[in-house]
């Protein structure tokens, strides 16, 4: 090493300065080229991204497990302290949820009958892929996470990513064994939604802040604090009726929504494979989707669940889902 630095010092200063400057200019220009290529979402750039995600996934998966162990140990220690109170609260909640479940089943039956009367086309079949979050949001300028499931597990671009509480985001890139989820808070995220009991149409737009904004609703529409925001299913990207959050702030030209998802405890995400022609996917994604049976990457019982939120989902899987969450909480 000393030899090389000796050489560098031996060079005449102007030549060295010139070499340094031209190297700087060269790499600076290269970075700008990358910037432009990335902005134009060139397929080559996307392929590199997914390849890197795939390569990094096993490493991150390995690194995630000790963190999970430590964090689980802390949580279980804390839970041990208040096990009696929690038990009582859960018993009460369980009773309440059983009533909800009965109500949901009754409504579902009624719904099915009414649909039959109306000859409405049945909701498309949905299936879930559960994936562990292995890469966190990397800094101030982006809101996305990496999950440990990819094309081989049936993940395709455009699928909705859910936690037990509600919609977290959508699949933006799919590698073979890893996928990147663009969260609803990211500034590139736009989700068509329905607001409140009146089910007014709007678009939920992220801006990297914790509370995304509602855009493009009709001027006459009354939006109040506390209105529920759910996916509308317009555009065919998401199933309709997935809970997203509640309106927390209504001001002139600025309506804010607080998502149900607890961003600091994103541990598992369920990706919804919604079998409708999707406008957000490209033709080759369709090929990937067709292959293979649903594959559970991790046991779905491990999903941290807010059963009340999932029981409101409209797909036929919702009841079973609420069931699983109840049994998990009763343990």
């Amino acid at each position, binding site marked *: *090493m000393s030899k*090389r*630095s000796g050489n*560098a010092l031996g060079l005449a200063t102007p030549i060295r300065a010139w070499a*340094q400057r031209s*190297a*700087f200019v060269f*790499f*600076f220009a*290269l*970075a*700008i*080229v*990358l*910037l432009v*290529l*990335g*902005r134009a979402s060139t397929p080559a*750039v996307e392929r*590199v*991204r997914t390849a*890197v*995600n795939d390569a*990094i996934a096993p*490493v*991150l998966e390995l*690194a*995630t497990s000790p*963190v*999970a162990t430590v*964090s689980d140990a802390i949580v279980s220690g804390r839970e041990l302290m208040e096990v009696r109170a929690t038990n009582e609260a859960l018993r009460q909640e369980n009773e309440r949820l059983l009533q909800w479940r009965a109500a949901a089943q009754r409504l579902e039956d009624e719904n099915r009958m009414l649909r039959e009367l109306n000859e409405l086309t049945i909701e498309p079949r949905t299936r879930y892929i559960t994936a562990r*979050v*292995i*890469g*966190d*949001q*990397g*800094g*101030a*300028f*982006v*809101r*996305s*996470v*990496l999950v440990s499931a990819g094309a081989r597990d049936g993940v395709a671009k455009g699928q909705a990513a859910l936690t037990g509480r509600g919609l977290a985001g959508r699949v*933006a*890139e799919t590698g073979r064994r890893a996928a*990147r989820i663009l969260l609803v808070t990211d*500034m*590139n995220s736009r989700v068509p939604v329905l607001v409140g009991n009146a089910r007014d149409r709007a678009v939920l737009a992220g*801006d*990297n*802040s914790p509370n995304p904004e509602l855009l493009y609703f009709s001027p006459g529409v009354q939006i109040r604090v506390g209105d529920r925001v759910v996916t509308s299913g317009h555009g065919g990207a998401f199933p309709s009726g997935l809970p997203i959050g509640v309106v927390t702030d209504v001001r002139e030209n600025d309506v804010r929504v607080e998502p149900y998802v607890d*961003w*600091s*405890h*994103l*541990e598992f995400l369920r990706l919804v494979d919604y079998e409708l022609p999707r406008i957000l996917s490209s033709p080759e994604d369709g090929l990937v989707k067709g292959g293979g049976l649903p594959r559970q990457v991790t046991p779905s019982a491990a999903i941290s669940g807010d059963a009340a939120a999932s029981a409101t989902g409209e797909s036929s899987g919702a009841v079973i889902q609420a069931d699983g969450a109840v049994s998990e909480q009763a343990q």
Partner: protein
Amino acid sequence: MKFSLWQRLDAIARSMFPVTATLLLIMASMVPLRIPELAPIIPSLSLIAVYYWTIHRPDLMPIWAVFVIGVAQDLLSGSMLGVASIALLVVRHLVISQARFFTSASFVVIWSIFALVAFLAFFVMWILTSLLTATLVEHSSATFQYLMTLAVYPGFTWLFVHGQRLFLR
């Protein structure tokens, strides 16, 4: 003096320590730590690493490596490609152009200069992201990320100093 093959391989491995350590740190900062609200303001370790090594061993943090580190950072975090590279290249250029000054500077001075340089780097990233998305990107998490980076700088400097003693002597 002639070196054996192993000695040469050993020397190469040692000289790769700064770049390898930086790439590992970028990966480590991606691991979900499940600490509430930490993820968006996770300190930018690549910034600290590039600053430190450019001051102390610029020969082991060549300009192409800085570029590669920036690309790796952007690819792993899912942010826009090229943004981190540009910020890190600016940092390296600033440090190299004032190399003479840093040779005699104390730790506190170097840390203070880092406050300025890191601010500039975050400002560059913020401006570029805003330009590319044609919106004024919300700046509070960038500000917090900057402050976090500043706060953890001494800790990582300590790590690098020990790494330098251990691997580079």
